[in-house]
């Protein structure tokens, strides 16, 4: 740690966020590497350090002898104030060196409301926020992650985007950069070459034309930039890089445990779920690889908990043998196994027994909608009976509190569907008191979380109008008034943040100036309620005569050119159209193991998809 940073630490909360030096963090000799990479997470240390993608890419880049990857998080207000006051620039946690002198600054785009933090971090680094004002070859600003599937609102600031899985493409980008750095290329020369790497999108190589009504007219590649940018996929998770060590933080972070990814992609096809589509095709990790990796992570970190990570844990085709082995060694080592993302329809008795062997964690299920009709429309193939049965099993097994996740504002939703959420919650409460095997002497708590639905790119709902703030608020009130018991806790989100999330999720390049204006007027940490300032955002849109409704609350026709149509995530537009029509008819689609629905994702993986084997 450098003295100039250290002397600020006594003025800030949780100095452990800025010290570095955690177990397993990697220190290299900077004179012996060719490439310095700053991996930035545009939120606080506690959140960023919980993110699996960062752990993977941190390990992957540092596995190279010629590169050194360091971690960077958004400093919290008190630290930012100290840094600005004392002219301390944003630095890498490992070396303490300023990241403005690095070769790459990589951002992960996990949620839309972190965009202003990216600008703020670039500014804190001492760099111009706009890509066109950074003339030198380095640092190259690269961004990836789920929100990169519609990166258009960020194209003013980011030099290049990495689409899809980062494991392979990151190394290719670094190799190419090393070559260009050696021969003294300009930034333009490097970016032009980089755009030829599969999965790399260089926005400055495209011109955009708009129609008079504000919709897109054309996306025009300049020179020989590819017309379609295809996302990258890792073919085989068993042989793909996975870290055997995690940096173990001293301070308490959100997800403070070993995390083992068991598969990528999802077989379910819930129509609201972007992750369920953009991470296709399905690629499973074999049980023995999972166990070997998970054990190694626990051994090197000292964690007493390992969490299996995927979009739907119980859908792994070999989950039973996988867990049997895992419980064996985990129990012996007194390690707790936690299984997030369980589905109500295949949460079996055996699974429940296994979960109880070590320590009991919470139970959360996501029926997503309150009535069968709406669950069919969103293709959440779960019946009320399955929810009740699962609750029954859980209560018999000694659980007394259950969390249920729902969404409001789903396409085709009526007030009846909203009231259905409260009814389903009530039925779960009733099920508890009907169950003779329930834990006696304790009441039941059903926590209902009702988030607001935001239509996202590459889902069958990408054309839908998002509910306006008024509509969402009406539904929230209706839901609240439909709950008649204190056994149910209800939580829901503020509507302006959902609106803004919707705007940026489906936004176009014109939003860059809005983001810059909002940031210059104090917006940052927008996903934190205490920071979010909706008035400034409204002013920013007014300033450029842009309309939030146009982006969020407008229904698009199938033939409209969408801002992400030049990106190919494997999912065919025709498939999404079919799914959209079925949604409006409340028709379900079988999941991928029953029948392949020809989404198209396997074509970018050489025709392979583990859902079909």
């Amino acid at each position, binding site marked *: *740690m450098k003295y100039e940073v250290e002397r600020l*630490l*006594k003025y800030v909360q949780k*100095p*452990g966020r800025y*010290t*570095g*030096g*955690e*177990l397993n963090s990697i220190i290299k000799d900077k004179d012996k590497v060719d490439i310095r990479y700053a991996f930035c997470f545009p939120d606080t240390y506690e959140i960023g350090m919980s993110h699996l993608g960062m752990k993977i890419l941190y390990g992957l880049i540092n596995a190279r002898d010629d590169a050194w990857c360091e971690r960077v998080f958004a400093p919290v207000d008190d630290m930012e104030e100290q840094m600005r006051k004392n002219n301390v620039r944003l630095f890498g946690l490992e070396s303490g060196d300023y990241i403005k002198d690095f070769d790459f600054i990589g951002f992960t785009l996990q949620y839309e409301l972190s965009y202003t933090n990216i600008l703020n971090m670039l500014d804190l680094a001492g760099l111009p926020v706009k890509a066109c004002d950074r003339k030198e070859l380095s640092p190259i600003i690269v961004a990836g992650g789920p929100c990169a599937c519609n990166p258009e609102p960020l194209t003013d600031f980011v030099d290049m985007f990495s689409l899809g899985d980062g494991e392979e493409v990151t190394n290719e980008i670094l190799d190419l950069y090393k070559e260009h750095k050696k021969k003294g290329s300009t930034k333009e020369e490097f970016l032009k070459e980089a755009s030829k790497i599969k999965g790399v999108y260089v926005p400055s190589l495209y011109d955009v034309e708009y129609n008079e009504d504000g919709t897109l007219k054309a996306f025009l590649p300049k020179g020989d930039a590819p017309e379609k940018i295809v996302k990258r996929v890792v073919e085989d998770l068993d042989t793909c890089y996975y870290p055997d060590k995690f940096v*173990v933080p*001293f*301070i*308490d972070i959100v997800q403070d445990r070993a995390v083992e990814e068991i598969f990528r992609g999802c077989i379910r096809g819930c129509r609201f779920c972007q992750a369920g589509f953009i991470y296709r095709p399905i690629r499973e990790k074999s049980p023995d690889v999972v166990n070997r990796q998970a054990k190694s992570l*626990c*051994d*090197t*970190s*000292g*964690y*007493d908990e390992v969490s299996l990570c995927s979009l739907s844990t119980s859908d792994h085709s070999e989950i039973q043998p996988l867990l049997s082995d895992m419980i064996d060694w985990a129990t012996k*080592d*007194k390690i707790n196994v936690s299984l997030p993302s369980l589905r109500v329809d295949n949460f079996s008795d055996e699974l429940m027994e296994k979960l109880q062997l070590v*320590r009991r964690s919470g139970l959360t299920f996501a029926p997503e909608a309150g009535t069968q009709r709406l669950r069919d429309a969103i293709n959440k193939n779960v019946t009320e009976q399955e929810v009740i049965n699962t609750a029954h099993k859980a209560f018999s097994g000694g659980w007394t509190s259950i969390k249920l996740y729902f969404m409001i504002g789903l396409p085709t939703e009526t007030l009846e569907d909203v009231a259905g959420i409260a009814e389903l919650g009530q039925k779960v409460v009733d099920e508890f008191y009907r169950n003779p095997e329930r834990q006696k002497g304790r009441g039941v708590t059903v926590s209902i979380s009702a988030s607001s639905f935001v239509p996202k790119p590459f889902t069958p709902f990408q054309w839908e109008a998002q509910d306006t703030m008024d509509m969402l608020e009406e539904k929230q009130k209706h839901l609240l008034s439909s709950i008649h018991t204190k056994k149910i806790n209800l939580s829901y989100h503020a509507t302006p943040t959902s609106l803004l999330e919707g705007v940026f999720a489906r936004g176009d390049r014109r939003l860059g100036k809005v983001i810059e204006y909002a940031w210059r007027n104090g917006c940052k940490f927008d996903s934190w309620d205490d920071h979010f300032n909706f008035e400034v955002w409204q002013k920013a849109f007014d300033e450029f005569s842009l309309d939030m409704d146009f982006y969020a609350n407008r229904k698009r026709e199938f033939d409209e050119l969408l801002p992400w149509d030049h990106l190919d995530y494997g999912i065919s537009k025709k498939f999404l159209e079919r799914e959209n029509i079925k949604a409006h008819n409340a028709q379900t689609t079988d999941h991928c193991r029953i029948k392949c629905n020809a989404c198209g994702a396997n074509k970018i993986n050489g025709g392979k998809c583990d859902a079909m084997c």
Partner: protein
Amino acid sequence: MRCVRVWFSKTGQAKYISHLDLMRCMSRLMRRAHIPLWYTEGFNPHPYMMFALPLSLGSESNCESMDIRIEGDITDDEIFKRLNDNMPIGLEVLKISEPKMKTNAITYGEYELTFETQQSEKLKQEIEKMLSADELIVSKMGKQGRKKVEKQVNLIEKIKEYSLDEKDGYVILNVVLPAGNTVNINPSLLSGAIEEKSFIGGECCRTFRKRLLTEDMKEFE
């Protein structure tokens, strides 16, 4: 099952590990080092670990101790080696011993406070003057039943002994203050008071706990 006292130092950037974080850090260390710990019996088994006296965030020390309970055959030398092989930067095991005293025997702590200043000779005189006066009043958050209240403390009455030194432009205050479960004076109260009351201007840039002492000023073992 046997009880073992692990003595360790906490220096450099490890001073930013808070007490709560240190406990978590140590239990992970035990796992990585495969120390055969005795676990509590019950619904949520956890290893037994007891720290003699928490060190405040930002302070360094070379006299920290932690009691653990060992089950199974392992020598003290082996524990020492395995722990040090797995320690994060800034923490180091100094020795392993049998606990000779109970932790409530701790009555005093000896600290070294280092002050950074433009004029060390003058600051030293100033501190000397402050500490030889009858009163050095600071306010301290204390408890009255369950309520938190602000209390006035005269530090002069609390200081058991002290010495002042000047070295390389720094002023070094060696001071023995009450420490332990009954009366505990955080050295930052003293350094804060000196920073605030000094005209010359000085900033305490290092707080180092050197020794823990019993009532009769013997070293805690």
